[in-house]
C-alpha cells in the first residue's frame, strides 16, 4: 500500500494505459507543462508531445477532433480543464460523440474519454464550479464516471480509457490533493458497479464524487446517535448500479440521495424516483434528496458555503428518516 493522491492516481492511470495501448493519447490545453492542475506532469517526457498533445484554446475543436480521431481507431483522452468549459463543446459531445455510432447504424465507434474537472473548489465562482453530471447521464450514448476515492481515480480512468463508448469522466477538483493508501497494481474497475463505502443497517445514503466523503462524516456522527448508515458510492452514474442500491434499500428501508450538484433537476431525482417506484412497498419512509440550492456558486466563502450540503444536513435527514417506520 502506498500513500497516493487522487491526482497522482489519475496520472498513473493515464500513463499505464498509454504504455499498455499505443492508440491512447491525450489532448488539451497546456498538457505539455503538466496541465492546469498538474495531472499530466512529466507525461510528455515519457510519451512525447504527439501523444501528450497541446491544443489551441478551442474546446469545440478539441472535442470534435477527438470524435474524428476516435472514429479512426485511436483512443483520445480529452482534457477539458474545467467541466464548465465543456459547455463550449456541447454539440461535439452530445450531437456528435454520443450519437455517431447510433446514427450510423453501428458502423463507427467513438471510444473517447473526456476528463472534466468538476465541482466547487476554492472560490472559483460561477463559471468554474459546476457539477453537471445529470446532463450527461440524460444523453443516450454516454457513459458517466465520477470517482470519489484515490483508488477509483485510477481504476475508473483506466476503465474509461478501455471503454468503447464515449465516457464523461468527472474528477472532483477538491479531491486532487486527497491522499489515501492504495494497493499497487490497481486495475480497471467494472463500469456500472457501485461500491459499498460503509456498511450499515438503518438508512442507505446513495452518493458519488466528493459527497461520498461528506456522507462518511455524517455516518460517523450518526453512530453516536445510534444510527447505522450504509453508504453506496455509485462511481458510475450511467449506467448506475441499481442492484447494489436496491439491495441496500431493501435492507434498510430508508434512502437518502445526496449530491453536490443543484438539487433541482440533479441526478438524485432519477435515483430517488426509481427507488420510490420500484421499492415502494419496502420503504419505511420517503426517499430524501439533498443537493445544492438552485443558485450559481458564489465567490465569497460564506456565500459559496451556502451551495454545499454539509454533513450535518445529511445526518439530520438520516435521523428524521430513522425516526419513521
Amino acid at each position, binding site marked *: 500500500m502506498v500513500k497516493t493522491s487522487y491526482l497522482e492516481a489519475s496520472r498513473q492511470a493515464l500513463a499505464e494505459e498509454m504504455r499498455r495501448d499505443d492508440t491512447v493519447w491525450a489532448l488539451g490545453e497546456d498538457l505539455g507543462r503538466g496541465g492546469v492542475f498538474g495531472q499530466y506532469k512529466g507525461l510528455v517526457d515519457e510519451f512525447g508531445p504527439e501523444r501528450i498533445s497541446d491544443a489551441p484554446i478551442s474546446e469545440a475543436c478539441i472535442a470534435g477532433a477527438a470524435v474524428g*480521431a476516435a472514429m479512426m481507431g485511436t483512443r483520445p483522452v480529452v482534457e477539458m480543464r474545467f467541466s464548465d468549459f465543456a459547455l463550449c463543446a456541447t454539440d461535439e459531445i452530445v*450531437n456528435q460523440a454520443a450519437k455517431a455510432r447510433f446514427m450510423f*447504424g453501428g458502423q463507427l465507434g467513438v471510444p473517447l474519454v473526456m476528463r472534466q474537472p468538476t465541482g466547487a473548489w476554492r472560490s472559483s465562482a460561477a463559471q468554474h464550479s459546476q457539477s453537471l453530471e445529470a446532463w450527461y447521464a440524460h444523453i443516450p450514448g*454516454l*457513459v458517466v464516471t465520477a470517482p470519489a476515492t484515490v483508488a477509483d481515480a485510477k481504476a475508473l480512468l483506466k476503465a474509461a480509457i478501455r471503454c468503447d463508448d464515449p465516457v464523461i469522466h468527472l474528477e472532483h477538483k477538491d479531491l486532487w490533493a486527497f491522499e489515501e493508501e492504495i494497493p499497487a497494481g490497481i486495475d480497471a474497475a467494472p463500469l456500472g458497479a457501485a461500491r459499498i463505502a460503509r456498511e450499515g443497517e438503518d438508512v442507505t445514503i446513495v452518493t458519488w464524487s466528493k459527497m461520498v466523503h461528506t456522507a462518511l462524516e455524517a455516518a460517523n456522527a450518526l453512530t453516536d446517535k445510534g444510527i447505522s448508515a450504509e453508504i453506496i458510492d455509485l462511481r458510475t452514474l450511467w449506467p448506475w448500479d441499481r442492484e447494489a442500491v436496491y439491495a441496500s434499500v431493501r435492507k434498510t428501508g430508508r434512502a437518502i440521495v445526496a449530491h453536490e450538484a443543484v438539487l433541482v433537476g440533479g441526478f438524485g431525482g432519477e435515483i430517488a424516483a426509481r427507488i420510490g417506484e420500484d421499492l415502494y412497498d419496502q420503504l419505511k419512509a420517503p426517499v430524501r434528496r439533498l443537493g445544492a440550492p438552485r443558485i450559481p456558486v458564489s465567490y465569497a466563502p460564506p456565500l459559496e458555503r451556502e451551495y454545499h450540503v454539509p454533513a450535518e444536513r445529511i445526518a439530520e435527514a438520516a435521523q428524521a428518516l430513522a425516526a419513521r417506520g
Partner: protein
Amino acid sequence: MTQPDAATARNFDAARFRDLYRQMWRIRAFEEQALRGAKEGLVLGAIHPSIGQEAVAVGVCGRLNRDDILLSTHRGHGHTLIKGAAPEAMMRELFGRDGGNCGGKGGSMHIADAGVGMLGANGVVAANIPIAVGAAHAIRLRKESRIVCCIFGDGAINRGPFLEGLNWAKVFDLPVLFVCEDNRFAATTRTAAMTAGEGAAARAEALGIPADSVDGNDLVAVDELVDETLQEVRAGGGPRLIVARTYRLTGHTGADPATYRPESEVATAWEDDPIVRLAATLEAAGVSQDDCAALARQAQEEMAGVFERASAAPWPPVGHAYTDVQDTGSPEERPW
C-alpha cells in the same frame, strides 16, 4: 458559359471524362429519384438536393482513393455516392429501410459508409470540420498515408468550428483538403449578406492555409485543381482549401419552392448546368451527343432500379431502435 475550351487545353482524357459525365448523371438521377421518393412519401425526413452541384462532388470525390477519408454535410448524396457508397443502400437509408447504410437509423442527413471511408454527413452545419481534423490527426499519429477530405457549405464558414478546425489543421500541419462548396445560399439566405470579407479562401489564407478558387460547375477545372492540390496534401504539404463556386438549382430542401429568388436568376443558373457544360466539352472532344445521352440513360436506369428495389425493401426490425447506442449499460430496455 458552355465553352468547350477545356477539351483542347490539356491532354484531355475523353474516356475518363466520359465516365465522370456518367458519374454526374448518377448523382443527378439519384437525387431525381430521391425527390420523387419525397413526393411519394417514401423519403421520410428532409432531403437536401445537390442538383447543379454535381461537378464539385465528382471533381473532388472522384479524386479520392478508397481508403481516403471523407466528411460531408447535410447536402452530401453526391459526395457519398462518388466516394463509392452503393446507391441502393443510400436510397434505402433515405426511405428508412433495412439495408440502408445506417440501417435506416440515420436518414439522408446522417449517411455514413465506413467501408468506403465516408465518416458521415452531418446534421449540424460545420460540425464535420473538427471531426475531419481529428481524423487527420489520427492518421498522423498512426503514420498512415491516406488523407482526409472535408466538404462544407459557404454558410458553414461563419460558424466557430470553421476557425477552430482550420487553425488546428494548420497548427498540426495535417493532411486535410477542405472544400467549401459555395452554392451562394444557406437555406433561404444569400450567404453573401451574412458573410463578412472575401469568404472562405481569404479566411484560410489568414490562417496560413493556401487556398484556391475554381468554377465549381466546370468539372474539368475542378478535377484538375483537386488533383494538383491533393498531390500536395499527400506529399505532406499540410492542409489546403478549395472554394468551388456553384449554384444550388433547387430549393434548400426537397420541400422548399425557393420563391425568395427571382426565377430569372435560376433560369440563368440552369444554363450553367455542369452536366450540360461537360457534354459540350465532350462533344468538342469527339464524344457524340448520342453517346452522352446513352450515358445519361444508363445512370437514370440504374437509379430507377435503385428506387424500385429500395421501395420494396422491408422496414428495419423494431428492436434496432435499441441497438448501437452503447456497449456499457446496454442493451437498453423499454422503460415500461
